[in-house]
């Protein structure tokens, strides 16, 4: 116990490094379980690829000569109509007899039900979607045949367009003309693929009709046109009605009835034209949902209601198809009219492969689905009618079906195997080798001995009829292989590893008690063993902890995460009011308290303007635009002000630095550093002046200056930091403990960081810097309000916990004030290119990082010692020096504790809400930002500790403690 305590006391830096390691390890483990990653491959399938497959050896391909247009599979349908009804629940389509009790929203799409029960060419499927069940991810999944995850590492980072191989790309590149109408998400995903498109804005959830009416307007006329091969109509009304009012509502039922009417008309048109030589002689209709929804209209997660949607498929070809009963997995019930309705099951994963097979285009490269037997049969079951030889075998038709299907599966399996092989070869986080071996085994099994071709079946031809047994066995082997691959991919790409997440969370959680212990042990032995001797400090501690806890709790709801900046400023204003009350109580520093409140009011408005930028890009925020202040930015006075004010602020900052330098008598090194910063500020001012239209003509700086000046500033900043880092080598200062010295060190550090951060932040930089300085000054003054008179250290804490909390809240506010928010589109990509034109990943990433975390992490952590500074500078007594060290260490620990606590809350929230609608849109980006922020804060605290204190504390601490003992 004693050794432990000694170790504990000897060096705070060890604890800080240990905490950093703890956080990094915990976060890494958690992230492995939580952030599902998948690498997008830049490869595309081509028609010619199929010759590499083992499926066509020699003349065994029976259709080789029949059609030149044949690619991978023989086209089975000529035209395809896909009607997507967004958020179509399974029970909207299936007859109510399939469910325990009928609900008001059931049996509304009666056209589909009637057709499914009366015609053999129509069938209802229960389609299972893979989470995340949001439209964008689902459309991506449907068209690529893959499983989109949170991080699809690929070229499309930031832009929504799908660059992976997909169905629409294959259609377009194989000469199929695609027409799209409805939800504009399609146009975002496939900007250049459609021959014609009629997109309508989808983001206004309250608008039930715009998209649908647009669809209706174009859908029916298009059916009479000849200029398309694939028609996609995406209706959004049901999704929006669910989002606003829920499933059990009048508009929802009205919407379903409206759809019933439209579908009736569509089917009528298709049916009328389906005669021989008609426009829709060989047309296939798919009415499908992209995902389901809960009774409240939410979707995104993985609950049964959300993933269960429906597909209605109908072929207008005559006669209707047949299929061996052993592949028919449907379950049948009587519907309301006492007719038998059968419903099959279908994985959305299989959609891309099945449709590709039906239309005869290559399967998308990354598709891991299998060609669904039932859906394929509906479209392709009867295409080889002309080959039908009159025979007395009753199951000859089935036999041919199987042979054909087996061929398709052969291509299907070969394509999936190719993808898995190339994926594991090129992806960093691929599949484990055992899994791969297992899959290869199964593929080999499926391939061995039997080929689907008729040649190998000749062996059995001697008998009166074909024996379908070997074919069936082969199809089963393919099934086994494909299903195994899908299962493996699902476990890898869509399932959270709860065990990993739990372990990671616990590891991070352990850091909390360490923070407390580290903060306590020292002071117990140090100055006062009086536990909470001063009730004032106790009240403040409780209040500060209350603020931290309430902020942490706020992360449990997506609404508060969206409005995090406002929440932070709300809490900051609350603490400021508490301080104001305090200063009224003491009748001191009223001005500072009021200035601080005013500052927060300004921050609050700036945050709202920043959020308005987010509203422009984020769908979630669009409903909240009424909160914003309206400013007309076009006015020339504003433009002029925007040019001049930052430069003035910069000059003021430089002046401030100069004054402080002139007043203090300090060592030359620090002086040089600060002088360098002043020079940088002047350079920045020149840089901005040269960029503005008004002044650029006067100064001949445009060409080189644009990139030259920022580079000089980066170089100077780096030089300053190096100088500071090696400053102990130049002169041994024993007067480290003096406050003045600490202040100068802080100033030098802050000033050397600030120039780079300001130039990256752009014009807002100097203003934000001024706000930071004013805020920090007020917090510092107000924090020392109780100290001035009685210079005693009471209780367990040697500082004002509320000040550190305020400092941390201010840092959070600054993050939002500088125009960031916790989403990837919240990064200011422009900042990465200040001083550089070309993109170099590491360099630009560092610049972006400095811009993103500069004002919210780097400056606050290095500026924390300012809070220690008191007005009264005491003498260089040993006691005083040790007190300073103690204060500094406790403040850093407290700051770390606050950051860690909020991140832990975020992580907890992510665990709880991992199946939430917005987990990928909101919680996961927030998690990434928080986690990066925490690690950065930890590292910065360690660096700051080394810089301000170094390891010297060991010696002094030990001697004094020995003395005491």
């Amino acid at each position, binding site marked *: 116990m004693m050794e432990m305590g000694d170790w504990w006391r000897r060096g705070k830096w060890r604890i800080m490094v240990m905490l950093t390691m703890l956080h990094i390890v915990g976060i890494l483990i958690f992230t492995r379980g939580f952030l599902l990653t998948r690498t997008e491959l830049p490869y595309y399938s081509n028609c010619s690829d199929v010759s590499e497959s083992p499926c066509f050896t020699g003349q065994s391909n029976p259709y080789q000569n029949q059609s030149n247009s044949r690619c991978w599979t023989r086209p089975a349908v000529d035209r395809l109509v896909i009607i997507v009804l967004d958020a179509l629940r399974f029970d909207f389509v299936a007859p109510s007899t399939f469910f325990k009790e009928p609900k008001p929203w059931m049996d509304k799409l009666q056209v589909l039900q009637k057709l499914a029960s009366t015609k053999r060419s129509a069938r209802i499927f229960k389609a299972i979607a893979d989470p995340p069940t949001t439209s964008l991810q689902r459309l991506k999944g449907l068209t690529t045949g893959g499983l989109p995850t949170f991080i699809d590492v690929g070229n499309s980072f930031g832009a929504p367009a799908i660059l992976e191989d997909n169905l629409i790309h294959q259609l377009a590149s194989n000469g199929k003309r695609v027409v799209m109408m409805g939800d504009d998400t399609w146009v975002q995903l496939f900007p250049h693929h459609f021959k014609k498109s009629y997109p309508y804005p989808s983001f206004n959830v309250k608008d039930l009709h715009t998209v649908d009416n647009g669809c209706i307007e174009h859908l029916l006329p298009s059916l009479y046109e000849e200029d398309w091969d694939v028609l996609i109509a995406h209706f959004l009304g049901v999704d929006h009605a669910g989002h*606003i009012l829920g499933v059990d509502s009048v508009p929802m039922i009205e919407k379903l009835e409206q759809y019933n009417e439209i579908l009736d008309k569509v089917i009528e048109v298709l049916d009328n034209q389906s005669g021989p030589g008609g426009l829709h002689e060989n047309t296939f209709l798919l009415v499908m949902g992209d995902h389901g929804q809960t009774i409240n209209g939410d979707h995104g997660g993985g609950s049964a209601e959300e993933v269960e949607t429906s597909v209605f498929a109908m072929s207008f070809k005559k006669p209707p198809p047949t299929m061996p009963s052993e592949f028919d997995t449907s379950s049948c019930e009587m519907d309301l009219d006492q007719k038998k309705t059968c419903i099959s099951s279908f994985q959305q994963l299989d959609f891309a492969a099945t449709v590709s097979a039906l239309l005869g285009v290559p399967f998308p490269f990354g598709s891991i689905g299998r060609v669904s037997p039932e859906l394929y049969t509906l479209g392709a079951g009867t295409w080889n009618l002309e080959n039908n030889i009159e025979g007395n075998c009753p199951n000859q038709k089935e036999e041919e079906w199987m042979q054909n299907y087996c061929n398709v599966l052969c291509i299907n399996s070969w394509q999936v195997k190719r993808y898995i092989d190339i994926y594991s070869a090129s992806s960093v986080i691929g599949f484990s080798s055992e899994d791969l071996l297992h899959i290869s085994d199964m593929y080999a099994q499926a391939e061995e001995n039997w080929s689907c071709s008729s040649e190998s079946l000749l062996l059995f031809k001697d008998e009166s009829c074909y024996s379908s047994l070997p074919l069936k066995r082969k199809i089963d082997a393919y099934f086994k292989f494909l299903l195994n691959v899908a299962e493996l991919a699902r476990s890898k790409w869509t399932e959270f590893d709860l065990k990993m997440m739990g372990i990671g969370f616990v590891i991070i959680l352990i850091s909390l008690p360490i923070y407390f212990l580290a903060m306590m042990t020292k002071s117990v032995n140090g100055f006062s063993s009086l536990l909470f001797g001063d009730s004032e400090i106790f009240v403040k501690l409780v209040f500060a902890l209350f603020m931290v806890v309430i902020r942490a709790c706020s992360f449990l709801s997506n609404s*508060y995460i969206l409005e995090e900046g406002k929440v932070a400023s*709300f809490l900051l204003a609350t603490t400021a*009011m508490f301080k104001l009350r305090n200063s*009224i*109580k003491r009748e001191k520093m009223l001005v500072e308290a009021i200035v601080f*409140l005013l500052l*927060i009011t300004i921050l*609050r408005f700036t945050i709202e303007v920043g959020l308005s930028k987010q509203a422009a890009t984020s769908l979630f925020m669009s409903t909240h635009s009424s909160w914003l202040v309206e400013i007309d930015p076009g006015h020339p006075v504003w433009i002029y002000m925007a040019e001049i004010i930052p430069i003035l602020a910069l000059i003021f900052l430089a002046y401030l630095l100069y004054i402080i330098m002139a007043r203090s008598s300090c060592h030359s090194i620090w002086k040089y550093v600060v002088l360098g910063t002043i020079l940088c500020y002047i350079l920045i001012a020149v840089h901005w002046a040269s960029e503005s239209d008004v002044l650029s003509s006067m100064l001949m700086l445009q060409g080189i200056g644009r990139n030259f000046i920022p580079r000089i500033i980066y170089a100077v900043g780096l030089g300053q930091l190096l100088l500071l880092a090696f400053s102990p080598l130049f002169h041994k200062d024993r007067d480290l403990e003096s406050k003045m010295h600490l202040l100068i060190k802080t100033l030098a550090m802050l000033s050397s960081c600030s120039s780079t951060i300001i130039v990256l932040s752009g014009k807002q930089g100097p203003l934000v810097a001024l706000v930071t300085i004013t805020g920090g000054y007020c917090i510092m003054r107000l924090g020392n309000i109780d100290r001035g008179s009685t210079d005693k250290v009471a209780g367990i804490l040697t500082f004002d916990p509320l000040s550190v909390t305020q400092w941390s809240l201010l840092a959070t506010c600054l993050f939002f004030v500088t125009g960031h928010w916790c989403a990837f589109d919240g990064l200011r990509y422009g900042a990465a290119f200040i001083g550089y034109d070309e993109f170099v990943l590491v360099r630009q990433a560092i610049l972006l990082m400095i811009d993103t975390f500069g004002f919210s992490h780097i400056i606050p952590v290095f500026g924390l010692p300012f809070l220690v500074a008191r007005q009264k500078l005491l003498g260089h007594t040993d006691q005083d020096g040790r007190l300073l060290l103690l204060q500094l260490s406790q403040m850093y620990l407290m700051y770390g504790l606050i950051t860690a606590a909020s991140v832990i809350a975020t992580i907890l929230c992510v665990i709880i809400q991992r199946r939430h609608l917005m987990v990928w849109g909101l919680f996961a980006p927030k998690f990434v930002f928080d986690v990066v922020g925490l690690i950065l804060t930890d590292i910065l605290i360690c660096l700051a500790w080394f810089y301000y204190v170094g390891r010297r504390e060991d010696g002094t601490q030990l001697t004094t403690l020995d003395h005491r003992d």
Partner: protein
Amino acid sequence: MVKASTTENPSQSVSPMQTFFIHLICGVGLAVGLWVAHNFYSISLISNPSRTLRLIWVTMCPLVILFYSCFRKNPEKCSYLKAVIRGVLALPIGALVNALGAIALGAPVGIQYFPKTVNWSLLMSLFTFVPAASVFGSSWEDWRRIFAHTKPNASVDYMICLPAHGAVIGAWFGAWPMPLDWERPWQEWPICVSYGAMAGYLITMVLSFVLVLARGGQQHPKAD
């Protein structure tokens, strides 16, 4: 927690019955305001917040000022009328302070919010500033004691201090549901904040009465 003050309090002593009566009047005033809005104008806080708030504060204003003025400090030196005028003057000043506080905390600003904010802050002023102004006038010491130190001594201090703090804290908590995406009409500014303030006000009035009662019970034997 609170010791009976040893110094003689110059304000009129207040019996628990009087406390009960005043709190009852204030509570009833609040209820009447809501009731009138609902039955005579058929509006509610949700459908028309600014008019309802105006009705409430107009109903409560005379009650609060007239009754609290009875317990003014130094009744010999300060006439009843003066106390009433003090209360009336404090109404807009207190409203301004409350409005500024709310804006610092994040209350929306804009033309469409202006009447709502004005009426809400007038009501808050009635809960917080007006009683104190009527009783203490411009005595900075007393204001500081009540609002900064939160050290009420006499019964009348409790009657002012507790409901004022209750209203503010209630309003603070009332603001929390506002950012939630429930899309309920009452999440608009200042509806839920007003509900929170009223709830806090009513609860702390009961508390204040209980404390005065308890204090009275303790003090009477001492006085004898």
